[in-house]
């Protein structure tokens, strides 16, 4: 992939991005065909925002006179492969070699670059391909039709007698050919056709075929530029220490020792943090360590993991806002002869992206430049405008590759902090958090406390299902309009759309906020709820004395796609063949079924549990029906990575608190899966003509209960409180 050198950013970030602005943005691209199209189109927004009916010039393709195709990427690349799948969608209909497509990061603009599903310029929620699937192909098709029209006019033939191939228009009867570059000037004067015909999927040449990732070359030779790699003339480096207790304030700083350190420049005080600016990171770190800082801990200096758990357990006694109510589940359960009930708990989790949090800012009188890798450029721009008092269009966001996102880079706390630091100096400053700061001042996946119960009939099947969820509402902070009648749609996602046939279902939600910041984490709502649902269905199967797969299959009678995926997974994983136990210890297989993000996934996990109760995941068989796959190898890669991300969390992930302070600090006590611990992951894709589903997150959500269910199969111990390693070694 060729990321273009950064060019001017349009100064119209709030309004419509016009042709003129794009030409400014793309200065250096020269004369060519510029096509505007709408990603929002008439799509209904999932979140209820955006989705205006009018045509808004929205994202852009440019073809220059050399035939080079440039698209402005409205999504960011954080490993999920979107910088390969977006060009594939356009190249398919435009009939060009995908490796010839160049990408440019989009400037911040919700209206121009909003996602069709999210209604805003956000990379998250496994939406990139789902939202762009149709609009990007249509954009490619429109451009192709215009180029064919110009060629046909020149040759004085009917357009129907021409076709496009490999960046050229061909006249079928005579074999005459003309490259796109020769046509773009005239094509740019044509109106874009309103009606487009997309290819029949059977004619796809690029979509659905493995394509080498376009971002690989720069990522294997050190030239890929992540936010942390930015170099700006006269830039200094800062590192920061925020109040160790959430909500605490800075009282005073003594920098007399720090001043002696070579490379020290100055101390910057913020309300709740202190930063040191220095010539380089080492001097900044040394200087920060040499400061004598006095904090006012504020009101949150006493809570602990134990007290937080007491609080949430108590909160869960309240009646919740009703998210789903079919039949009369509470009544049926209350009067049932046989019932099963359980409490499930999921811990706080940090994101621990490999690229620690960083942000580079230069605040000047007439504008502010921000270099960062963010999933939410518009939000970053807004917060910087507020803090600097500048108009929003005077804040220029220079977006970069993300060294992992996982939800962490949906937040702009660190952007706000960096702007607050940079405001106090007259040069650019790169703020880099240490790993310790990154883990101890993350915004955490919330703790959830779920009570779940079922009424069971004579055959052991659930007649009523009641799921009572208690936890923080991320949506109430992130996007309040999405919270309706007290129900946070994220907090209940994966709980309300039960695939199993149960006549009475009741799901409700109690919002309970801990005294610390919470945020989305890979797999969002389903990572929490699928764990609870798939663990509990496994409990019901065990209670009925039935095989976990057979029990689920019988209950999936109204969910044919889920059922087909489960049948295939059972076959691929040789479900009916018991797993051989190791010489010492035990072994078992567990299964889980997921429907979320528009995708169906079944995973079968094999674990070994040694005599010291250490769990080793040996193998994961993953069957995916995510609709039409744009780049099959990307789907595989996202499953492999998502699965291991989930296993890491399920086995070891937990953030603990004492005296209001995070106890974990680096990879020695916030454990990551390593190569010697990685299972074999086998991914099977179900061929499908359905619309694409998301793939960045569900692998993570599906695997956690499959691991816990395998541990149950091996040991007979049901893990109802994550992480698993701790559950098995404590009583």
């Amino acid at each position, binding site marked *: 992939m060729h990321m273009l050198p950064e060019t001017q950013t349009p100064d119209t970030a709030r309004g419509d991005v016009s042709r003129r602005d794009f030409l400014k943005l793309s200065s250096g691209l020269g004369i060519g065909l510029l096509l505007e199209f709408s990603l929002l189109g008439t799509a209904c927004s999932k979140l209820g925002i955006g989705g205006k009916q009018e045509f808004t010039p929205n994202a852009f393709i440019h073809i220059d006179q050399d035939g080079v195709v440039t698209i402005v990427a409205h999504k960011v690349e954080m490993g999920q492969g979107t910088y390969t799948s977006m060009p594939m969608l356009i190249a398919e209909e435009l009939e060009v070699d995908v490796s010839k497509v160049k990408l440019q990061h989009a400037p911040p603009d919700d209206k121009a670059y909003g996602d069709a599903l999210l209604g805003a310029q956000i990379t998250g929620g496994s939406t990139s391909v789902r939202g762009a699937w149709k609009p990007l192909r249509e954009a490619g098709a429109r451009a192709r039709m215009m180029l064919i029209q110009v060629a046909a006019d020149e040759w004085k033939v009917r357009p129907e007698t021409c076709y496009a191939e490999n960046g050229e228009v061909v006249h079928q009867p005579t074999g005459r050919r003309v490259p796109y570059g020769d046509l773009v000037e005239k094509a740019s004067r044509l109106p874009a056709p309103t009606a487009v015909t997309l290819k029949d999927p059977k004619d796809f040449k690029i979509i659905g075929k493995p394509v080498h990732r376009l*971002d690989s070359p720069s990522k294997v030779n050190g030239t890929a530029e992540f936010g942390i790699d930015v170099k700006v003339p006269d830039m200094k480096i800062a590192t920061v220490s925020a109040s160790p207790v959430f909500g605490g304030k800075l009282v005073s700083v003594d920098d007399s020792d720090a001043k002696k350190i070579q490379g020290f420049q100055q101390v910057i005080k913020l309300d709740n943090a202190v930063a040191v600016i220095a010539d380089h990171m080492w001097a900044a770190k040394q200087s920060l360590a040499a400061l004598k800082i006095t904090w006012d801990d504020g009101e949150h200096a006493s809570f602990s993991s134990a007290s937080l758990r007491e609080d949430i357990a108590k909160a869960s006694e309240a009646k919740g806002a009703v998210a789903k109510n079919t039949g009369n589940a509470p009544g049926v359960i209350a009067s049932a002869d046989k019932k099963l009930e359980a409490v499930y708990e999921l811990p706080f989790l940090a994101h621990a992206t490999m690229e620690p949090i960083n942000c580079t800012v230069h605040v000047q009188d007439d504008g502010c430049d921000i270099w960062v890798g963010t999933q939410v450029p518009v939000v970053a721009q807004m917060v910087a405008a507020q803090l600097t008092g500048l108009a929003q269009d005077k804040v220029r966001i220079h977006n970069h590759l993300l060294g992992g996102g996982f939800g962490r880079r949906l937040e702009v706390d660190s952007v706000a902090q960096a702007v607050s630091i940079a405001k106090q100096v007259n040069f650019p400053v790169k703020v880099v958090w240490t790993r310790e700061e990154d883990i101890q001042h993350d915004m955490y996946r919330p703790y959830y406390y779920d009570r779940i119960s079922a009424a069971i009939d004579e055959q052991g099947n659930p007649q009523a299902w009641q799921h009572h969820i208690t936890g923080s509402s991320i949506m109430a902070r992130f996007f309040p309009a999405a919270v309706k009648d007290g129900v946070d749609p994220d907090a209940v996602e994966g709980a309300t759309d039960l695939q199993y046939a149960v006549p009475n279902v009741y799901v409700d939600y109690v919002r309970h906020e801990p005294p610390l910041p919470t945020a989305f984490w890979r797999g969002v709502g389903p990572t929490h709820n699928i764990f609870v649902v798939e663990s509990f269905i496994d409990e019901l199967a065990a209670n009925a004395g039935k095989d976990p797969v057979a029990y689920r299959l019988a209950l999936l009678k109204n969910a044919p796609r889920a059922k087909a995926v489960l049948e295939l997974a059972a076959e691929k994983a040789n479900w009916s063949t018991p797993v051989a136990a190791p010489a010492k210890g035990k072994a078992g297989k567990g299964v889980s079924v997921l429907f979320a993000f528009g995708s169906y996934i079944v995973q079968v996990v094999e674990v070994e549990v040694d005599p010291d109760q250490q769990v080793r995941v040996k193998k994961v068989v993953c069957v995916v029906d995510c609709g039409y796959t744009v780049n099959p190898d990307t789907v595989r890669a996202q499953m*492999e990575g998502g699965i291991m991300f989930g296993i890491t969390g399920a086995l070891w992930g937990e953030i603990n608190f004492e005296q209001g302070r995070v106890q974990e600090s680096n990879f020695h006590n916030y454990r990551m899966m390593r190569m010697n611990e990685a299972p074999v992951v086998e991914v099977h894709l179900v061929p499908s003509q359905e619309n694409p589903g998301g793939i960045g997150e569900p692998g993570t959500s599906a695997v956690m209960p499959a691991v816990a269910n395998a541990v149950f199969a091996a040991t007979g111990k049901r893990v109802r409180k994550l992480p698993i390693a701790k559950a098995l070694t404590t009583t």
Partner: protein
Amino acid sequence: MITLNVNGDQHDLDVTDDTPILWALRDVVGLTGTKFGCGMSLCGACTVHLDGKPIRSCVTPVSAANGKEITTIEGIGASELGKRVQDAWIEQEVVQCGYCQSGQIMSAVALLKENATPSDQDIDNAMSGNICRCATYARIRSAIKLAAGQPAAKEA
């Protein structure tokens, strides 16, 4: 003043002796391909070669590089083996976010330099100090085997 020899170029730096090579490279020399991940030799993102041996540059001071040759991800492709490993990474579609891959490749090249035909166990031993949060481990293993001329069949 200290002189660092990086990828064959001499750099005179005005940093203290205890400055980790990582920060000298990134913030003073300006070579940002070498990544900061943990600062405690726990993740391997900062791996470079010192006279051909892999070291964690986040905990190795510049004084340890006196008179020695540092090779970074920006320079590793100049060797036949380095290029072969980079090509194998592309062929096996290893990268996702890519942030840790500089360190992974430096560790892999160091392994293959010592052991041209590593076993799975050898690969585990050499590579388990390098964390990949995107968990590209199976593909890293395949890429190492491909670079070593061994069959590197991808997962089904």
